[in-house]
């Protein structure tokens, strides 16, 4: 009973209400973004690098959330599509001489197109069969990266140098973080808007009750294909931004393990929600780093911690699945509501 009430609340948030439900959330989001923008300028390169990775992964996770969390089309090829975006953008900028901003958008569009192509089988597949189809996409695309040297230059990838827009070079990683943050915030706003639209509601309907949705007149094929295109646009854009963050488009950064990691990210973060994408990205990026840092700072010897890192990470994933199967986003919402009630109570007093 309680669960269904919560589910109803989650869905109603996506059905025609404001982008963010409460004033607390709206102000909180603005403060968070401004805080990140300003705070990042005072951090060392390493911490900015972590923040940038988290932000890019959040953007990529929004795409996967749209596809798997909202539309219910489980994919284990998201990293490969990020790779399509990264290599395409590098090709547009370095080989074709296009400006970076144009290349980023074109990379998103090309990736959306490739996503559509691989999405066609999804019209006839679902469940475990669809997962296998996306597995095939991951294998094919990764093989393509290793073989298509006209695009990737070497099987390991290609350097892309420092990002620049209209003569301004992002040689300070904190400045590049601002660009990434701007894209991610924009991506978040579009994501929330999409969920409120008829299309977003159709996605959730086909995830929950595909037959009923079709009986109600929803176009199943169109909705699925749009989910594939939109989800992979996010992947392509995030992949391109990732390339310039690393200043190297590495084939290995888009392997099957990274795709599975992305799926773990949205499940642990919370399927179908914006906060889930962000919280999952924080978890995926920070957990191994914190474990390493603890090893370095406490023992000055990472060799003790490193072999345990994967085990601890795996254990945490299992614990999350056991105790919070609906993701960190749900607990985050509860925490926000608790804080909000406390703050407003204090104010009213």
């Amino acid at each position, binding site marked *: 009973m309680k669960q269904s009430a919560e589910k109803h609340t989650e869905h109603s948030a996506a059905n025609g209400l404001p982008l963010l439900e409460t004033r607390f959330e709206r102000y909180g989001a603005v403060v968070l973004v401004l805080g990140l923008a300003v705070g990042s300028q005072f951090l060392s390169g*390493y911490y900015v690098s972590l923040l940038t990775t988290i932000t890019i992964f959040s953007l990529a996770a929004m795409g996967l959330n749209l596809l798997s969390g909202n539309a219910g089309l489980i994919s284990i090829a998201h990293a490969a599509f990020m790779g399509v975006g990264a290599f395409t953008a590098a090709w547009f900028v370095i080989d074709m001489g296009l400006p970076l901003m144009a290349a980023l958008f074109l990379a998103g569009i090309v990736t959306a197109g490739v996503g559509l192509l691989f999405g066609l089988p999804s019209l006839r597949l679902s469940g475990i069969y669809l997962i296998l189809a996306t597995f095939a996409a991951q294998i094919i695309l990764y093989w393509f990266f290793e073989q298509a040297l006209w695009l990737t230059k070497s099987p390991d990838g290609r350097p892309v140098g420092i990002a620049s827009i209209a003569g301004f070079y992002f040689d300070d990683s904190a400045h590049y973080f601002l660009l990434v943050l701007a894209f991610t915030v924009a991506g978040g706003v579009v994501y929330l808007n999409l969920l409120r639209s008829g299309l977003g509601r159709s996605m959730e309907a086909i995830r929950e009750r595909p037959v009923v949705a079709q009986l109600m007149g929803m176009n199943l094929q169109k909705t699925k294909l749009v989910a594939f295109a939109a989800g992979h646009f996010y992947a392509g854009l995030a992949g391109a931004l990732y390339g310039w963050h690393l*200043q190297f488009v590495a084939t290995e950064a888009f392997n099957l393990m990274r795709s599975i990691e992305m799926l773990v990210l949205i499940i642990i973060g919370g399927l179908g929600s914006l906060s889930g994408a962000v919280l999952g990205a924080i978890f995926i990026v920070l957990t191994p780093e*914190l474990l390493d840092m603890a090893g370095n700072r406490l023992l000055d010897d990472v*060799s003790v911690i490193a072999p345990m890192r994967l085990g601890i990470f795996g254990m945490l994933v299992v614990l999350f699945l056991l105790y*919070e199967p609906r993701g960190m986003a749900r607990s985050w919402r509860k925490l926000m509501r608790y804080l909000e009630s406390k703050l407003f109570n204090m104010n009213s007093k």
Partner: protein
Amino acid sequence: MLQSIFYRTITIVFLLTAMLCFFPGCEPAEEEGTIRIGQITNRTGETSDVGIPLADGVRDAWRWINEQGGVRERPVRILERETGYNVPRTIAAFRELSGDYGVSLVHGFGTPDSEAVMDLATRAQVIYMPTSYDERFVNPEMAPYFFITNTDYSTAARSAVRYVAEQNGRLGLARNSGGFGMAPIGAIKDEAEKVGVPIVSEQDMSYTPTSAVQQSLAFRNADATHVWMGNTHTAMAVLARDLRRQESDAVIIGNIYAGDENFIRTAGSDAEGHLSLYGSVEYGDESAGMMEVIMQAGYRDPNTHYIRGWAQALLAAEVIGMAIDRELEITGENLRNMFYELEDFSPGGLVPPVNYTPEDHRPGQSSAIYQVRDGRWVKIWED
């Protein structure tokens, strides 16, 4: 209830870890004059079977140097970052080491991760010493701050082709399709054409195959007498087994990471007679000056990778010592100039002598070939 306990536990552990990580007082204290050296290792990722002994070799060598009083009485602090052969983590680690810790020298690992920091090392002017011997890393125009201890893959593979030419052999290629396996393919084909060795078959193999029947049949049907292998010891052991099963007489010439002690252990009797471009003296060879010290370290699983780890650290210590002798600041630029002043320097006698010039960072121009005889690597040919 359980959920609440779970969250409280996770939150407490997370906060404690974060405090430990971010609280400046937790950073280990450093003596005055300490030299910071970075080390990027692979202890958990793919090919960690060689990553671990390489990392431990470097670490044990620096530990021994510190026990002797450091480099010219200056202690050395090794800052290890384990990145699991993961390119993004390697880039983040390099930025942390060069930016936040201001190191002037970093010990690195494999091909894709080292390739990814090439530009960063140039911009930061930080010496980077990978244990991948890719041809690009010895080109000062591409990687002016990269220095390796062993003959690069392409030069070594050319030696292998010349060896096959001396045997009037027919060469097959069994390489991994990644950068590490593909790197010397162009050089092999060029050299084969030059010395008249026919390349009769080119096969792809993953790093951890379970079968090489198709490849073995291809080599047998093409009458290959030798098979150059750019891969791992696992792949080489599988190929050795399946060549025997398919009744092929082809002899494998493994590159430095394929033909090692693990190959002999994995392949067992199938290893006999196969060859390697083995890059160091064998463990226990006391003709090498440092071998006694290395043996005293009592490493649990000593092999050529562990020895090359030692050699790399000893080489780094040598150039740092030279810079201190000249009262130079320990910067990447000054260390780079010290590398150029080395003349036929063999670190601890563990690897062949190295020489570098501003135009050519290849430490050597040729390679020796070793053969498995009675379960040991024995040098049989020198270019």
